[in-house]
């Protein structure tokens, strides 16, 4: 008994010292993603979390020698879950915006793609300040897309959905005239699909940092800035050693990092 007690005290002591002196990454390091935003992150039929961001996160974890585990979390609960410390980091197309920076900390960006509207090719929908106010627009709740619409076009008929897939379903059934989304997601979720033939992107690209920030970054709790810093370091490493380019090419056929 006595020996056992000493033993566990020793383990505790080692544990404490490791944490307080070197700020080791949590083990396991739990990463949340939405799992409903292909090809960035999604869940396949057998429940595996896949996607560009998941592969990227795995590569970063390998760099960091961290034992990473993935969990999925619905989009509108993804920041609350982080604040409540249900997981250590979010790798889920979370754009680095000034608004969000007041609440959580971010790594450097790991991808940046513009935002556009997608409409039915044979519709006469016009993507302009005036045109937008005349149509019904769908997007995902709690996203930068919703923010931009509410700030720039408060009078537009905006419908918000729990996941982007539902917005596309309503575009196809004709309930909404346009969907606002990331161009890569538009391609993957609509244009490249079998039923995506009659649709096209219309209007300008949007990338105003006020809503779309500075690209997608790894989000962490404000007290865990060191985790974000570690990811920033890992992003730089995989950018330099070619791993990033390889993964990006695998998923998209081009480099989604955006401007350096």
């Amino acid at each position, binding site marked *: 008994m006595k020996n056992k007690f000493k033993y566990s005290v020793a383990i505790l002591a080692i544990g404490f010292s490791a944490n307080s002196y070197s700020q080791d990454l949590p083990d396991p390091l739990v990463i949340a993603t939405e799992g409903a935003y292909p090809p960035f992150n999604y869940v396949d039929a057998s429940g595996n979390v896949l996607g560009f961001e998941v592969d990227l996160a795995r590569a970063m974890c390998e760099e960091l020698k961290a034992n990473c585990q993935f969990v999925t979390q619905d989009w*509108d609960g993804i920041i609350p879950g982080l604040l409540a410390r249900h997981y250590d980091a979010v790798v889920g197309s979370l754009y680095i915006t000034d608004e969000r920076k007041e*609440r959580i900390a971010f790594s450097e960006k790991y991808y940046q793609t513009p935002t556009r509207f997608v409409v039915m090719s044979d519709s006469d929908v016009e993507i302009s300040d005036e045109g937008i106010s005349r149509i019904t627009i769908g997007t995902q*709740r*709690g996203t930068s897309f919703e923010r931009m619409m509410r700030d720039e076009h408060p009078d537009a008929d905006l*419908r918000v959905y729990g996941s982007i897939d539902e917005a596309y*379903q309503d575009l196809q*059934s004709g309930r909404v005239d346009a969907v606002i989304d990331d161009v890569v997601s538009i391609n993957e979720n609509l244009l490249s699909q079998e039923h995506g033939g009659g649709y096209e992107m219309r209007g300008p690209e949007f990338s105003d940092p006020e809503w779309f920030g500075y690209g997608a970054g790894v989000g962490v709790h404000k007290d865990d800035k060191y985790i974000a810093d570690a990811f920033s370091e890992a992003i730089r490493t995989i950018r330099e050693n070619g791993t990033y380019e390889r993964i990006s090419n695998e998923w998209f056929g081009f480099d989604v990092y955006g401007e350096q």
Partner: protein
Amino acid sequence: MNINAIIEGLPRFIDGVIITVTYAGGSLLIGFFMAIPVALMRSSRNRFFYWFSTGYVTFFRGTPLLAQLFLVYYGAGQFHHELDVIGLWDFFREPWFCAIFTLTLNTTAYTSEIWRGGLQAIPKAEIEAARACGLSDFQLLRHIMFPRALGIGWPAYTNEVVYQIQATSLVSVISVMDITGVARSIASRDFVYYEAFLFAAALYLLLVYGFIAFSRLVEKKLHRHLKDTTT
């Protein structure tokens, strides 16, 4: 606590309250009356009526309202060509229609069981007495059985209304901006999850207890012949 975000969002919350009250009130009003024929069919000896109404009630009481909403809303979306042909798409394309349609079918199923229970609980002697007085079938239902069933079923119906007010919170999944939809939108916009949902909860509480107070008055009126024994 970030009160400012809530104050700024107040107009949107008021719109949300109007939506919640309209959707709950509309579906309950239609459902209250639609439930009567369903309850009669459920007690009917006609096999078709019995199985039709039993199938309907079993389905809507036995499956989650959330699943029913998705089924109606996205199900209709998938068949929009077919619905267009028969002229129903103009209705089913609107989220408000799908929401009230589903809420109504749902509350009708529950309310019909309250009606049925109330009708079956009427003492046989009262019905016989009414018949002895020479009332026709219709007069019997209209003047004796429905008022009695309503008195018996009212406490259970009050519960149904309370559940229904809360159940409307699910319509935000089909893009309707009810109290919950507004709370979700404001919460994620300004990171005021705690404040937005606490405020939404307070609004629901007001609606529910407002109705319960009203329901007490109705109950007194329904049981006015029992003035001495009820409080």
